[in-house]
Structure formats: C-alpha cells, structure tokens
C-alpha cells in the first residue's frame, strides 16, 4: 500500500525582498506517512513546519524534490487534503454556521443537513455562537471554529498547524480527546504541528523533530504506547524527557527561543 504522504528530498527556497535575495526554508526533507497514521511535527519557531504543511496541502510548490500523495504528485489543493491554518482564516462575512456550510458546499458534500453542522458546533462548544460572526468570537473560539470547519469536510489527510495553540489547557485536553476519537473513527491521516510536547506524545504515533535554518528533519521518534494514553505514566514522562533533550541539543534553537 502506498504512503498517504511522501516527501522526497523536498527543499523550499523563498524569495526574500527584505534580504535582497533568497532564503532556504526547507532542505532535503524526506518523510513518509502511511495511511491512517498520526504524526506530529515539533520544532523551533521558523524552522519550516508551516511551509512543510503548505507544501503537502498544495498551497506551495517545492523548489526541489517531490511531494506525493496517494501515489500521485501533489499539484495544487484538493479537498481530500484539509488544512487547519495557523492564523485564522474564517470568512468575516459569514457566521460560524455559514463558515462550516461554506466548507461543506465547497466539496459538494452538503445536503442541507443542518443537524450535521449542529453536531460540529456542539463539538467545538460553539452551539451558542452558531449565528455569531468571527469578529464577535474570542481567539480560542475562532480557532475551534476553524478546526471544526476543516474537520467537517472529512479529508483523507488532515494537516493541522497548531490547531489548539490558543486554547486553555482544559479545553485543549478535551479537544485532544475529540481529535483522537475522530482520527480513530475515520481512519484519516493526521499531520499536526504543535509546540506542546505533551500534546504530541498524547496523540501521535510518530514525532518528527525538526531543526532550523534551513529546516530539516532532525529526528523521528516512535511513540510505542497504546491509546488512550495516560499523561502521568512513566513511559510518557520518559519520552517527554527524550524529546526535550533532542530539541535542546541544538544551540541555535535555544537562541531562537531567546529572541
């Protein structure tokens, strides 16, 4: 069976007017994600995580190498590959319900099933705000709305760019469980960027640690624990220590955090 997502020697160079030249955001990234896997990307700010997701989504074209999805090279976007953006991309002129409806209509899956949208609103804890506009929501509420908007489309591959970054730890844990549940139920492939090591361990089967400038894959760690996972178990703590160590080795990453 072919991999759900495969990156072969992918490199990305951006033209940078401010530097009067170019800048390598990604270099020689090799990655293979099998169908139905849950993979997390960890790495310092600016190391190219979002760029990597955007390449898989088809929003950026790799400068070098090849990005393949389901055996075919990635050319442009496809509703089978969903992306939850890092910054909020809700449509300002539509209500929360309207935003979800828009996504469903886009994929022509929409059969005016109001109850389905209600279900998603419930899951996001936004039932009361169904008819509110994005600017009337808090940052965390917007993030939840954007998350369920992408989930509603039920893509085969879901790319999540810090989907829970703006949430308090309790809402976050609840949504982590929901994500895990949806992933199990749908057998979809999930690739998630996060800054939260615990979140990565709690959810994913594999964790990819990236290094910065240019962005590379530093290390790939397996998480050999069964679901549902116990955040307080010894295995969990041990793995957390291992990952933190792996990320701390690099001096320049330390610097990045200091900036």
């Amino acid at each position, binding site marked *: 069976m072919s991999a759900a997502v495969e990156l072969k020697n992918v490199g990305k160079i951006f033209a940078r007017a401010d530097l009067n030249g170019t800048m390598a955001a990604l270099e020689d990234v090799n990655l293979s994600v099998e169908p139905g896997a849950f993979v997390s990307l960890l790495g310092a700010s600016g190391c190219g995580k979002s760029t990597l997701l955007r390449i898989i*989504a*088809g*929003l950026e074209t790799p400068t070098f190498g090849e990005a393949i999805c389901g055996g075919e090279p990635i050319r*442009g*976007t*496809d*509703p089978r*590959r*969903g*992306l939850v*953006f890092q*910054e*909020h*991309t809700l*449509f*300002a*002129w*539509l*209500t929360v319900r309207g935003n979800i409806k*828009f*996504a469903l209509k*886009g*994929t*022509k899956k929409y059969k005016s099933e109001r109850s389905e949208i209600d279900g998603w609103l419930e899951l996001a804890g936004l039932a009361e705000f169904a008819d*509110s*506009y994005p*600017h*009337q929501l808090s940052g965390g509420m917007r993030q939840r709305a954007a998350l369920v908007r*992408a989930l509603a*489309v039920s893509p085969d591959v879901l790319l999540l760019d810090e989907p829970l970054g703006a949430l308090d730890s309790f809402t976050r844990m609840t949504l982590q469980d929901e994500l895990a549940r949806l992933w199990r139920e749908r057998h979809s492939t999930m690739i998630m960027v996060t800054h939260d090591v615990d979140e990565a361990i709690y959810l994913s089967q594999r964790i990819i640690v990236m290094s910065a400038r240019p962005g590379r894959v530093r290390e790939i760690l397996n998480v050999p624990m069964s679901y549902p996972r116990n955040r307080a178990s010894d295995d969990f703590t041990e793995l957390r220590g291992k990952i933190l160590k792996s990320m701390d080795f690099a001096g320049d990453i330390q610097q990045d955090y200091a900036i």
Partner: protein
Amino acid sequence: MKRAERAMTAWELRRLESAPKSKLRRAARRAAALLPAILAGAMIAEYKLVPAFPKYASNPIAYPISNMYVYFAAAFGAALLAWFAVSLVSRRAHEKLLLKTPLYCVLIILLIAYDLMTLKTGKLKMPYFPWADRILLAIYEDRLMLLDCISHSLVLLFSGYLIGGAAGLVTGVAAGWSRRVSYWVMPLIRLLGPIPSTTWISIILVVASSLFGGSVFMIALGVWYPVTMAALSGVGNAQRGNFEAARTFGLGSARLVFKVAVPAAMPSIFNGLTQGMSVACTALMVAEMLGVESGLGWYINWQRGWAEFARMYAAVIVICLTFTAVNFALTLARRRVLRYQEDWK
C-alpha cells in the same frame, strides 16, 4: 435578540454610572422636551398675528399669501407632540428627543426670524428672498410637474448608475483578480479616470443621437471609475488566507471570485458605490441643465429663465429631498449587505 440584550445593558450601564438626578431636574428635562412643539405653535402664531409688510399685503395677486406655512408648521408641531407623547412611556424616545431639542428649537427660531425678515418687514427683498410660505406654495402648485420631473430624473439617474455600477464591478473585480485583465484595463482606467465625467457633456451634445442615451453614458462613466477602483482595491486587500482556505475546500477560480473575492471586497465596493452616487447626482444635474429637456435640473434652469425664484428654491428643496432619499436607500442596502460589520469597533 442578542443585540437587543446588549443594547439594554449598555443603556442601563449608562444610567447606573451617571449621577442621580433630582426630581426637579427630571421635571425640567421633561418640560424641555416639549419646547420644540411649543415653538412650532409660536411659528403659526407669528405667521398669523404679525401683519405682513404693507407692500405685500396690498397686492395679493402679485404676492399671494397662503396657509401652506400653517399646515407645514402644524404638521411639524403635531409630529413633535406625538414624539413627546411616546417619550412619556419610552425612555429611549425621551433621550432622543432631548438630544434633538436644541437643534429643532434653533431651526424653528431661524424660520420665524426668516419670516419676519421677509414677509413681515421686507428687509430681505423679493424676488430674491421669497418667504417660506411662497416656496411651500410653489411646491404645492407645481406638484404634478415636480413629481414628473422627479420620476424623469430618477429614471435617468438609475439608468446611468446601474449600468456604470455593474460595469465598474465587472472591470474592478476582473482586474483585481487577474493580472492579464489588469494589464489591459489599468491603462484605460488611468486614461479615463482623471477626466471628470461632466467633461463629456459638450461632446455628447454634438455627437449623441439621443440626448438621453448620451447622458446615461456620461453618468455611467462617472460611476464606473470609482466603483472600478473600489472593487479593484477591495479584491486586492482581501486576505490571502481566505482564498487559501477556500482552495483547500476545493473551490475553483470561478467560485473563488464569486464566493470569496466579491464578498471580501464588498465593504470597499460600497464605498465606491457611495462615491459613485455623488458623482452620478452631479452628472445628472449637468446633463439636465445643459441638454436633457426634463427632470429637476431642467426645471430649475427653466424657472431661472422666468426669474421665478420661489420655484427655483422649491426645486432645490425637492432635489435635496430626492437625493437624500436615494442616499438613504443606498445606506440601507449597505447596512443589509454589510450586516456583519454592525458592531465593529
């Protein structure tokens, strides 16, 4: 529902935070709200009781003095009284009336002063300064003609406005969306944009086979430019993330334009439409005054030929009311389309 709730709390907050008012002050505020209605009564009293300037009073054929002014003042006073009656039960109406009280008082006092200066003392002379009753009478006497003029003006205005607005939307959105279109359209915009649309009137007068058609073209051209520019910048300033998100939902270019670019540009487009309306009104007046033989602009020009100042002022008032109504309709449309911006800021 949610909105009303919020308004209530904001209102109650203000009441909570403002210093408590004494009984006497509350009574004084109540009484003050009655002042405009009382002054409206004074308006009638002044008009009826103060004798007219002898020169006018002695010649009712040349200087007719009617009761139009009384009806006007009575209607105004009745409306103010009704408002006052509502304000006895509704706090909001009361506050709003209090807010407007000084404005209406000054307005009525100015009207009384004007009547004294013209009809009653002749300090401001006829025919340049007809008294208010003369102007109202002129509107009343010429009402059929004026209505006809209004309808002709509106037909011309909206023919040009709708054509120009639609064309502006198409060119603006297309140029904002596609580089290739922008390559061909931008030079045209740069060339035609700076020319005030009224410049074309002289050419239209000579060339156009139909003056109406020519005027529609001139108005449309005047509207086209601001709407194009507004749509262009609206699409250009749309958030890239919105387009990207829509693309991940599987939208193709056509739907990206209609479902994302156009709605995102709507606030800007409405600015262009408002600007376009003021250009269109100017162009309409120029067209009617110089060529088209109907409409309010033509009427005012025609009355000028007869030195009928009261009728000219009457036309000015009607033009003001008409354009106010048109702009109000546009504002309503804007509020409806941009409902989501209601509580921004």
